C-alpha cells in the first residue's frame, strides 16, 4: 500500500524531511518502524527509543501495536507540548 509518512519536531530534524510517500506491506505501526529503521542510520537514530515517540494514524493518536489496515497517513513525533 501507499502511505504518507510525516515527521514533526526533532523527528523531522533527525530524519531530515517533513514527509515522504512510501510503499509498504507493514501490517502494524511497529512493522513500519522496523522497515524505516532498517533504511538508514538517520532513521535508526530517530526511532531508537519508541518511548520518546508518539504516533498518529490518519490523524488520530494511537499506539505502536496498532494495525495499519487501510491507513493513508502515519505521523511520528515527540510527546506534544501545546498550551
Amino acid at each position, binding site marked *: 500500500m501507499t502511505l504518507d509518512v510525516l515527521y514533526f519536531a526533532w523527528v523531522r530534524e533527525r530524519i531530515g524531511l517533513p514527509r515522504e510517500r512510501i510503499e509498504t506491506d507493514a501490517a502494524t505501526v511497529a512493522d513500519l518502524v522496523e522497515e524505516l529503521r532498517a533504511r538508514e542510520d538517520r532513521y535508526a537514530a530517530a526511532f531508537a527509543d519508541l518511548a520518546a515517540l508518539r504516533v*498518529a494514524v490518519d490523524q488520530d493518536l494511537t499506539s505502536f501495536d496498532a494495525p495499519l489496515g487501510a491507513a493513508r497517513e502515519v505521523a511520528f513525533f*515527540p*510527546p506534544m*507540548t501545546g498550551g
Partner: protein
Amino acid sequence: MDVRVQSDAFDAGAELNAFAGGRDDVGAVVSFSGLVRDDGGLRHMEIEHYPGMTAKAIEGIAREAMERWTLGDVLVIHRHGILRPGARIMMVATAAPHRAAAFEAADFLMDYLKSRAPFWKKEVRDDGADWVAAKAADEAALGRW
C-alpha cells in the same frame, strides 16, 4: 464551540468580550492565556503543529469538555509559528451557568491541550535552540480527569 489555529496574533480582550457578550444564559466566564516566557536569553519560540490534525484534536477535547460539564460555550485559540517573548501563544475561555464548571472545564482543556494537541515548541536562544521536552507531570495531570 469555537476553535481557531492560526499564526496571526489575536486580541485576547476583544475575544473575551465577544465570547462573553450578548448572552444571558451563563453566569460565569473563565479565561486562561498562555504567554511566551523568557527564563533568560530567549530570542523567540517556534511552535510547530500538525496542520491536518490540530483543529480536529482540539475540537475533540472541547467536545469532551462540553459533554462532561454544563457549559454554554468554549473558545480555544492557539497560535503557531515564531513568537517573541511576552507574546500570547493561546487562550481558552469557558462559559457556564455556574463558576465551578467554568473553572474545571478550563483546567481540563489546558491539561489536554498541553499533552494531546499536536504542537511542539522550540526555544531559540542566543546560545542555541532546543525542543521543549514534555514533562512527566503534564502527562500525569491527565489522570486527574
